[in-house]
């Protein structure tokens, strides 16, 4: 008997929308199974149905057998038993899943004391054991700490400890590392695999990241729009995908593996001939920025950063959260002033945040920015066309008719139509919104386009489309791009040159392919090693790296 046996599961909302359609998934004891798909594919809903966490008023069909018991139909009491002993879950955002007013110790020992009636001291000992098992450095001390004292990665380990403390047979992980840095992700994954192995525990791992699934799972299921479109061994699915959708997904997924033979076929950075203009589009010299908050040690967000981007080139800035890459972007576009150093864009001094009207407009024409979150960086009340028109009218003296036509031109450039001009942001998809943001930036015809994690919030296939749009525009207009990202694989797709930042400093600088293939700085190597790779590829990658 399988540990988990989901058989033709369907889920329907009262209005008739079918969110899950005939899902069948099995997880055997000790097996790690991946559930891969893009947002809206129903992968989270499927996983949640195992623990009976269902949307209100939804109609369910099929069955979800957890250790032979149908969790859709058992009594509330029995369901609680299943949740206590058979399966537990780790969610994406650890901070949303823990009570901020209670200590980590209370969080961990609560279930033991309530459900297994362990005395306080014994529960505490188990808590300490579990914190040790997830490799937190000071278990005794951590028990007395509050969630806000932990970083995201440490808190996720606490959540894993909490999920494992009742010794479940099945652990469901719903995108447990999506909000974390890549080095932290690698540590968490190591903890999870180690625990799964030592306990002989089954694991259902939900992720949108194909590489991660490939590096971790024995078998995978690929989901799209509420259906399982493909299943099989991880290697089989990813190296020889059968379904159309899987093929598209695999093709859209960027990778860091540098394989000279595949280099011709793989999507390569657009080679835009650097013009003779040696002045460079962006030149930063010894830029520094320190934040001082009263009563706290000053935070040196950017330290002595120098970089140069020649006209028409794309420079990637890679770093983890807190590396100062976003601060650098904000200084370049004039949202912040640098404390020291100098920034020249197309030969003009742009070091300070602009104040007067003329300065503001000049700075805007020097650098434009595309922000990370397409859901927040567009004004919710303003239609796409109007947003672009606003920018046009501020910077040019076009008549209303001319600017309307220009709006259509710009939308066309980013692959959208006049129909989208009338649309409010909430009716557009994430990728479309990001394209509107790009069109809006292009309306001003800037010397430099800064993209701050501009594709991080998007699904891989949408990300690929947006990157294609950017590549197309670069080819046509020779646009200079400063591309900021945490994702080495994406940077590799866009940028010829890359700098790696850590703690506000540049630790390595070089051509992207050389940097990925032959990293010099230990931190760059750590970053690269942390990027998940398919298990069967790992040896090849290590060989080519050395």
């Amino acid at each position, binding site marked *: 008997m399988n540990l988990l046996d989901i058989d033709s599961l369907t889920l329907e909302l009262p209005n008739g929308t079918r969110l899950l359609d005939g899902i069948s998934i099995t997880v055997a004891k000790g097996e790690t199974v991946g559930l891969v798909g893009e947002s809206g594919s129903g992968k989270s809903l499927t996983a949640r149905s195992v623990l009976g966490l269902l*949307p209100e008023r939804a109609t369910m069909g099929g069955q979800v057998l957890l250790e032979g018991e149908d969790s859709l139909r058992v009594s509330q009491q029995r369901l609680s038993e299943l949740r206590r002993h058979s399966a537990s879950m780790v969610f994406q955002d650890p901070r949303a899943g823990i009570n901020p007013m209670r200590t980590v110790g209370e969080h961990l020992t609560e279930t033991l004391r309530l459900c297994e009636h362990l005395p306080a001291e014994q529960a505490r000992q188990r808590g300490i054991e579990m914190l040790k098992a997830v490799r937190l450095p000071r278990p005794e001390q951590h028990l007395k700490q509050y969630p806000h004292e932990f970083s995201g990665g440490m808190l996720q380990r606490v959540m894993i400890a909490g999920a494992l403390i009742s010794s479940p047979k099945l652990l469901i992980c719903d995108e447990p590392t999506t909000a974390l840095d890549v080095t932290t992700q690698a540590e968490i994954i190591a903890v999870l695999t180690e625990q799964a192995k030592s306990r002989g525990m089954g694991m259902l791992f939900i992720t949108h990241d194909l590489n991660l699934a490939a590096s971790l799972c024995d078998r995978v299921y690929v989901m799209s729009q509420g259906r399982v479109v493909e299943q099989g061994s991880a290697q089989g699915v990813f190296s020889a995908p059968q379904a159309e959708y899987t093929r598209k997904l695999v093709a859209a997924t960027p990778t860091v593996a540098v394989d000279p033979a595949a280099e011709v076929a793989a999507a390569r950075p657009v080679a835009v001939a650097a013009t003779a203009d040696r002045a460079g589009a962006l030149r930063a010299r010894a830029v520094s920025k320190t934040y001082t908050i009263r009563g706290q040690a000053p935070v040196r967000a950017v330290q002595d950063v120098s970089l140069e981007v020649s006209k028409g080139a794309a420079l990637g800035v890679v770093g983890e959260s807190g590396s100062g890459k976003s601060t650098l972007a904000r200084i370049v576009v004039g949202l912040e002033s640098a404390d020291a150093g100098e920034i020249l864009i197309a030969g003009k001094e742009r070091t300070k945040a602009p104040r007067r009207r003329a300065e503001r407009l000049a700075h805007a024409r020097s650098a434009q920015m595309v922000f990370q979150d397409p859901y927040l*960086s567009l004004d919710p009340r303003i239609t796409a066309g109007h947003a672009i028109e606003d920018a046009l009218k*501020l910077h040019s003296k076009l008549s209303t008719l001319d600017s309307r036509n220009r709006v259509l031109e710009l939308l066309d450039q980013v692959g959208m139509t006049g129909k989208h001009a009338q649309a409010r942001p909430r009716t557009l998809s994430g990728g479309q919104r990001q394209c509107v943001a790009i069109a809006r930036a292009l309306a001003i015809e800037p010397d430099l386009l800064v993209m701050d994690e501009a594709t991080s919030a998007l699904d891989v296939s949408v990300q690929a489309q947006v990157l294609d749009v950017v590549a197309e525009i670069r080819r046509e207009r020779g646009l200079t791009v400063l591309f900021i990202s945490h994702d080495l694989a994406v940077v590799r797709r866009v940028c010829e040159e890359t700098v790696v930042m850590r703690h506000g400093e540049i630790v390595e600088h070089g051509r992207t392919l050389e940097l990925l293939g032959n990293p010099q700085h230990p931190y760059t190597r750590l970053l690269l090693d942390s990027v998940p790779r398919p298990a069967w590829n790992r040896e090849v990658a290590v060989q080519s790296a050395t």
Partner: protein
Amino acid sequence: MTAQTLTAKELKAPRLGGFGITFTVSVAVLLLMTVAAIFAPIIAPYDPNEVDFMAVHSGPSMAHWLGTDSLGRDLLSRMIFGARTALLGPLLVVVSSTVLGILLGVLAAWRGGWVDAVLARLFDVIFSFPSLLIAIMAVALFGKGLIAPVIAMSIAYAPYVARLTRSLVASERHRPYVAAYRVQGFSGWWIALRRVLPNVAPIVGAQSTLNFGYVLAELAGLSFLGLGVQAPAADWGAMINESQAGLVGGHFLPAIVPAIAVVIAVVAVNIIGEELSDRIGGEIPA
């Protein structure tokens, strides 16, 4: 993950159309009062100040539907004319307090720093006085009538609007779309007034609608105390005041009719305000 958000959204989808019966009735009542106030001279059967000593304290009859008061004046006509000051006063207060409050709120949120701190303390000071007390002080200084209390209450109610606007604008201010406008080169004030303010305006509007009800009741109270609209002008508060003597003689109608009018108006406005703020609350841009 996103499937979850999607479901949650569909289940919580705002009820489009399908206004509740109470809401519809409230709107109808308020419309009726407004129409009555505007067309009072046409609608009212008598002149509100026409004295008829032959019909003092007459009960409801065909000639006088709601009866007459101690001077034989037709209560229905006085009610209809009374709606004019009853609605005009709060309207003036709500409009001026909203304009003042929005300007101060945006100023506090956008400038921050010492401007914010000074304004916050100023609002605290105004909050510490009951609005009725401020109105009475204004009457003591500038004399009786409608103007002095209206100005005083505009000032007293502005901080409610200002505090709400401040917190809304302050949270909008840190959204990426505002940074995006800045990067495009727009001035801070343009962003604040032309782009951020319209995004928060519906919520502020709902708060102001609620204020309308409170102000209506308080102005009626002021007239009742003899500090607002002066007799013999028809005003609901003043009418209750004038009919006090009659209560001893068992003539309840001249007091109860305007009192019920005040209650109905305030309840109607509050229902509308609550409904609006509920609906708009769900529409706050995420």
